[in-house]
């Protein structure tokens, strides 16, 4: 239990989770790494039906960042349950379904279908910036956030983990709304809305126009938001944003997160999980700590209320 964590009813062997949309459905990494190394895997975002997603270009690089507008291309929840889940059964890792919808009803319906053996929890994606309905339109509005999370809550017995948007003035408001709506944990954060322009052709570099910014560039913003969310609620928070190393992951844990997700870095180096886990072990040894849980929330913040604190 040195590295094990408990996450709103969900037990993870370690706090490392693969982030939605950056690890496919998990099966793509079979043979490249041992999926049982991971504390958990979040599926690519799933709607009721399969979707084509956006035209290309869908990803462009920005300084230390990645801007994407995939548009939630995916196989749909039924195909996932039918075709993918059985292939993942033999791995000892928590499978989390990333639930999407154009409407509140669709979220609930996907949640109902996903509530099958083999699925460990549901992450509610109310923060995708690359779809014209649902997504960020829900996650940027406290009332809609409450409605979606409540509906998913009613539709499943599985742990419900809303994924918060960073494109808001005060993330702690949304954290509290989710807690009230019955969430078991929070994922924090999704991508930041960005725009990159091809100045020679004077069009956006992404076919869709705007996109979601991820990667090391956003880490300081993500750590700040995860810290604000963790201070605002009692349910556990999963930190996400720009993690590429043990130190990066520890930033989120020290800030108060019970677990973390690795996103963009999966594309850069599939060996990252083994690397971070080894780093955790040597960190615990160096600091003479019994378990990773002792690191969680150990940040000593300077005196006084910071302007970015939840009270701001």
């Amino acid at each position, binding site marked *: 239990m040195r590295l094990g964590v408990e996450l709103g009813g969900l037990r993870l062997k370690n706090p490392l989770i693969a982030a939605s949309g950056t690890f*496919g459905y998990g099966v*793509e990494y079979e043979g*490249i790494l041992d999926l049982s190394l991971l504390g958990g895997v979040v599926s690519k975002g799933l709607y009721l039906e399969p979707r*084509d*997603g956006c035209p290309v270009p869908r990803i*462009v690089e920005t*300084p*230390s960042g990645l801007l994407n507008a995939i548009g939630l291309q995916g196989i749909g929840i039924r195909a996932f349950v039918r075709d993918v889940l059985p292939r993942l059964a033999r791995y000892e890792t928590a499978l989390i379904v990333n639930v999407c919808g154009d409407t509140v009803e669709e979220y609930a319906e996907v949640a109902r279908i996903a509530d099958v053996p083999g699925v460990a929890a549901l992450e509610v994606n109310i923060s995708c910036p690359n779809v014209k309905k649902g997504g960020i339109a829900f996650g940027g509005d406290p009332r809609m956030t409450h409605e979606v999370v409540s509906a998913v809550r009613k539709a499943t017995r599985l742990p419900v983990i809303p994924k918060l948007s960073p494109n808001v003035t005060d993330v702690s408001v949304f954290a509290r709304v989710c807690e009230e709506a019955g969430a078991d944990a929070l994922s924090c954060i999704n991508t930041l809305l960005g725009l990159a322009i091809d100045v020679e052709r004077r069009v956006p570099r992404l076919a869709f126009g705007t996109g979601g910014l991820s990667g090391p560039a956003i880490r300081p913003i993500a750590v700040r938001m995860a810290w604000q969310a963790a201070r605002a609620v009692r349910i556990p928070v999963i930190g996400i944003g720009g993690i590429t190393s043990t130190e990066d992951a520890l930033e989120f844990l020290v800030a108060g997160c019970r677990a973390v997700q690795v996103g963009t870095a999966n594309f850069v180096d599939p060996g990252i999980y083994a690397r971070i886990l080894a780093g955790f072990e040597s960190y615990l040894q160096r600091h003479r700590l019994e378990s990773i849980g002792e690191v969680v929330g150990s940040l000593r913040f300077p005196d006084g209320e910071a302007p970015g604190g939840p009270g701001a």
Partner: protein
Amino acid sequence: MPASSTHRPPVNRDVPLVRRQALEGPYVLLTFRHPEVAAGARAGQFVMIKANTVSDPILRRPFSVMRVDPSEGAFTLFLKIVGPGSHALAELRTGEEAGCLGPLGQPFTAPPEDQEAVFVAGGYGIAPFVLFGEELGRAGRRARAFYGGRTAADLQLCDAFDGLGVPLVCATDDGSFGHRGRVTEAVAAHLDTRPGPVTLYGCGPDAMLHAVARLAERRGVPAQVSVDPWMGCGLGTCLGCVVPIRRPGEARPKYHCACTEGPVFDARDVVWP
């Protein structure tokens, strides 16, 4: 596409640079130690590779495997320096390591026994055909290569087929070397000689691939093209590299990942812009 290649899963490793050979202009040959790529890569497959751990730019880059040496446990890339990713690789010193995942993607499929393989390469698109020429040579198949570029300096691998029994025709847009004009015009001229049944294989810029596809359709010959989209992961998970593909019998095109279902596609199935 044969599924056989997927039987050798890609392996992620830090690979030391074992040899570096600067060519003219922005071209360089780089040889890295990676036993699994050396043993398993087939023509048309590629690696995702990055020279350092700085995060600007963040992603690895795709490069075709040009040659393998299983006994040395090493493979060679033919690299054109165009931006920061290729530049950082070209700056590596012998012994320094890069992060590398491979072999990836679906290889070219050999033509039926009675047919000649006709390679149509533009610029760095020559790379996979070096390996393909060797593979076909070992299998006793006939091949012929057409190699085009803007100018003479873009044709750096004219000697790569020496000793493989693959006749080579070069073409440059400005006529500074070989035929003046598009490489596909030279291919068309070859087809005009009624060389018997052939399969075309294209690798190069999009416009050239499209021209290969049109030529194949007009002449009623099969063609495989290796497409060149942006790639983020090489594993089918970022969904950044998709290409609209309409397979025979399908009503509308669907997005397919160039990294796992390609980069080699049947030219008829590709929906050109």
